[in-house]
């Protein structure tokens, strides 16, 4: 058993290196380290001790919640100490995520989705400040955390922590467990920012011994509400498309397990389940199990008894109480709140759902669809994982097997070996806003790929995965097309008055209709004239949410009176705006806030905005009353600052 070379090599270098990092932190911070706990003002120094140049770093950026305090702290490290980091994170959402590259703290990026930062990301790539490794789907990036992109340092966020480092992630668990698993078990450093330190967490989502350090962030982490669609904006045309989808696809195939994309098209389907689907006698036959974020639009279907289970990628602000009250439906902890998990839900959507339906911006003649637009690098997120046939799937179901039979007839010859097929449906009105056609000869994605130097065009759903396209003109079943020419005509045949649709060959399209490849509303026995918003189970957010206005109150002690006495009002209760009334009050040096808002469920956001405002001005003996009409945090902060300026009389016209 002599293997000298093996004896010479050390096999625990990562553990040794981890120890060196922790020793550096202990010697620099000394007694400022309180066990696992570290104070907010010491975090930049801590990061400079535990991060080494070239490290692979995961800065938790989810679809919704953001490790925003740690992101900001990382932008403040000394670039001569910490540089050339390789960032691996699912979502590039905050400006700080890109500041890292401008400040030359990081140089390489592997990610999934960039959303609001897409334009700036494209510019930084063009300026060669960022080298992009690859743009992934969520499951791909998560998988690589366990193969070749394992984080050396993970900067994560949670709702609360106890002194032992046990973390409670709350309903927005999202990516956290996966990131920590990959990092902690490969001798990495895990630093968590939490909204509060408590003596006992409501439930343990991450065990404390996987966590290196915990810091209480000065403000609660940012969470983006993403999935709430106001039913008031659903159109009659979307109702018609939803009726065709329910009758022509859900009922036809018996779709019991499914995932919906985000948008008004799918919200319309959700709101027709308890009305239209019920009238077709489909309860218990369709839409029983879901991999889905907690969409408010699904509430009526849940209440009507259609839905038996929902597993969620993340949560949605405002839905917490509803979810907690329905533990039979949602996955909840013994504390009552939900536990979401993006990785598991993506996996569930890919392997255990029979149907994905989503909207898109552009579809070409092969059925490829893309949401890419010029001058932006937006990435993919999870839609491609949902909207793809799961080639590794082996368990049967009615919907999967029927789709498999249809697909095997493709090109006119039947395969002998039976195999199932996932239903992947694209639902679009033929023209989008501003009369932009949804059907095009060539996707903008080609130009995006050219201009950003991508190895291939960013296609969201590949045409060979798409089984159906639904428009106001009908349903095209692409599985039943025998040739690629037929497939093209099937797409033209539902493309309406777009240039692509006008170029159809009318005889071929009529022939396809005879064969059931294209089905119009009347072929499904749906009277298009009956499509009306009247059929929606809810017609406004108010219908979904019950009472409308939410009253919030906050009080901050320890402010200073500025001596002003004349009440001031700033702003207007217009849509997306608010008014702020500021006046003197005897409050023992406290600053009291009374807020009426129609946007329910944003208490945490309000608290964060108001806390920051109080920290900026430290006003005491002042009452601030707000009538809100759906203003964004930026507008709220601006009006508050303007009110203080007016109140103090600094403003001179």
């Amino acid at each position: 058993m002599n293997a000298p070379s093996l004896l010479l090599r050390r096999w625990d270098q990562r553990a040794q290196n981890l120890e060196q990092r922790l020793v550096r932190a202990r010697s620099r911070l000394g007694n400022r380290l309180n066990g696992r706990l570290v104070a907010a003002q010491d975090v930049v120094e801590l990061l400079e001790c535990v991060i080494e140049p070239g490290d692979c770093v995961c800065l938790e950026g989810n679809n919704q919640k953001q490790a925003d305090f740690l992101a900001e702290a990382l932008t403040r490290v000394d670039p001569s100490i910490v540089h050339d980091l390789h960032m691996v994170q699912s979502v590039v959402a905050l400006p700080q995520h890109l500041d890292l590259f401008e400040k030359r703290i990081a140089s390489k990026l592997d990610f999934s989705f960039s959303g609001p930062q897409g334009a700036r990301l494209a510019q930084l790539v063009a300026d060669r400040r960022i080298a992009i490794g690859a743009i992934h789907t969520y499951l791909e990036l998560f998988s690589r955390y366990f193969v070749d992109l394992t984080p050396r340092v993970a900067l994560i966020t949670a709702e609360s922590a106890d002194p032992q480092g046990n973390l409670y992630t709350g309903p927005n668990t999202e990516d956290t467990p996966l990131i920590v698993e990959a990092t902690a078990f490969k001798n990495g450093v895990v630093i968590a920012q939490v909204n509060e330190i408590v003596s006992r967490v409501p439930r343990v989502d991450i065990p404390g011994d996987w966590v290196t350090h915990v810091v209480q962030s000065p403000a609660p982490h940012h969470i983006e509400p993403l999935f709430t669609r106001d039913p008031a904006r659903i159109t009659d045309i979307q109702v018609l498309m939803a009726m065709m989808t329910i009758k022509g696809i859900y009922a036809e195939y018996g779709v019991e397990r499914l995932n919906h994309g985000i948008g008004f098209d799918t919200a319309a389907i959700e709101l027709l389940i308890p009305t239209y689907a019920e009238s077709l006698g489909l309860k218990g036959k369709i839409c029983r199990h879901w991999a889905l974020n907690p969409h408010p639009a699904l509430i009526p279907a849940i209440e009507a008894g259609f839905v038996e289970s929902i597993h969620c990628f993340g949560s949605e602000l405002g839905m917490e109480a509803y979810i907690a009250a329905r533990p039979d439906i949602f996955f909840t902890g013994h504390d009552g709140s939900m536990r979401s998990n993006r990785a598991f839900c993506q996996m569930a959507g890919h392997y255990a759902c029979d149907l994905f339906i989503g909207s898109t911006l552009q579809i070409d003649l092969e059925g490829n669809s893309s949401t890419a637009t010029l001058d932006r690098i937006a990435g993919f997120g999870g839609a491609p994982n949902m909207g793809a046939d799961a080639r590794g799937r082996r368990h049967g179901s009615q919907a999967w097997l029927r789709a498999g039979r249809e697909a095997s007839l493709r090109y006119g010859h039947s395969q002998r070996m039976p195999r199932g097929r996932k239903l992947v449906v694209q639902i679009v009105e033929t023209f989008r806003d501003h009369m932009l056609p949804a059907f095009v000869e060539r996707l903008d994605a080609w130009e995006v790929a050219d201009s950003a130097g991508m190895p291939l065009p960013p296609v969201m759903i590949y045409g060979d995965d798409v089984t159906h396209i639904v428009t106001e003109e009908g349903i095209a079943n692409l599985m039943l097309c025998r040739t690629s020419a037929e497939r093209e005509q099937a797409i033209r045949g539902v493309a309406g008055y777009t240039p692509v649709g006008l170029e159809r060959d009318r005889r071929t399209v009529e022939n396809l209709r005879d064969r059931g490849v294209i089905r119009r509303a009347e072929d499904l026995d749906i009277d298009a004239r009956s499509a009306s918003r009247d059929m929606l189970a809810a017609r406004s957010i108010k219908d979904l949410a019950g009472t409308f206005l939410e009253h919030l109150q906050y009080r901050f002690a320890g402010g200073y009176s500025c001596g002003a006495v004349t009440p001031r009002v700033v702003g207007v209760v217009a849509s997306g705006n608010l008014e702020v009334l500021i006046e003197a009050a005897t409050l023992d040096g406290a600053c009291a806030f009374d807020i009426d808002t129609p946007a329910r469920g944003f208490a945490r956001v309000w608290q964060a905005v108001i806390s920051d405002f109080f920290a900026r001005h430290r006003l005491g003996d002042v009452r601030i009353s707000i009538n809100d009409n759906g203003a964004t945090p930026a507008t709220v902060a601006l009006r508050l600052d303007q009110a203080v300026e007016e109140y103090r009389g600094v403003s001179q016209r």
Partner: protein
Amino acid sequence: MRHRSFYEATARQRIVEILDAHSFAELVGPEQRTVSPHMQALQLPVAFDDGVVVGRGTLHTKPVLIAAQEGGFVGGAVGEVHGAKIVGLLERARRERPAAALLLIDSGGVRLHEANAGLIAVSEIIRAILAARSDGVTIIAAIGGASGCFGGMGIAAACCSAVVMSEEGRLALSGPEVIETAHGVEEFDSRDRALVWRTMGGKHRYLLEDCDVLVDGDMEGFRAGIAAAMEAPQSLTLEALEREQAMLARRLQIFSSSRDGRDVWRTLGWPNPETVPLVPTDVFLAQAAALRAA
């Protein structure tokens, strides 16, 4: 730099800019929280001033009472509290006899949420205007906000001693969307913005003599225009009403076949009617004066 656009300003900004500096004192201010009980009952957002700011101040050192509607809050629509504040101001004008009562109107009309209470409020405003005028109070309507002047407030404006408008201001009884809904898009396409301004905008209203003073849409324009209107008060006499009645009868006769503002302008003798919306205010006013003299 503060913007000086009347159109984009809030009600409070308009008052501050129209009146003499630091002269404004608000009545029933927002700190009194006299909000709409109807909106509260409907669980809809309320405004501390119910969308109208009232008070007193001076304009070129002359005492005035002033009300400014906030077009951003439910389209400046008149509810019970909102209306009562304007009526109270006009009753005060009858007692105090200021140089003028100024109504900065920015309103789609009655607030539908308040149903009969809103309708009664509008009728009370109209009655208060006429009562104050018959007591000799000069009441000036200024129209130049994003919500225009429609519905019951359109009637109220027509009852005032003088109407000051900018080109951006719109004055009519039924708003564009209401006409389209009631009579069809062939009758009136409310999305045709140029058509809306050709039939309801300040220049057209000036040529039809519904508007007495046409001003540029900035604060200085309105301040000067209102001051000018205060100098030439129209008293509420039988002769004045008969003159107005004769003007309306003449107008009906001359323009009854006109389908569009352009037809009216052509009949009035404008050489290039399609250029009317484009010419600057001063050029427009000079040309209009020349045509009237002819």
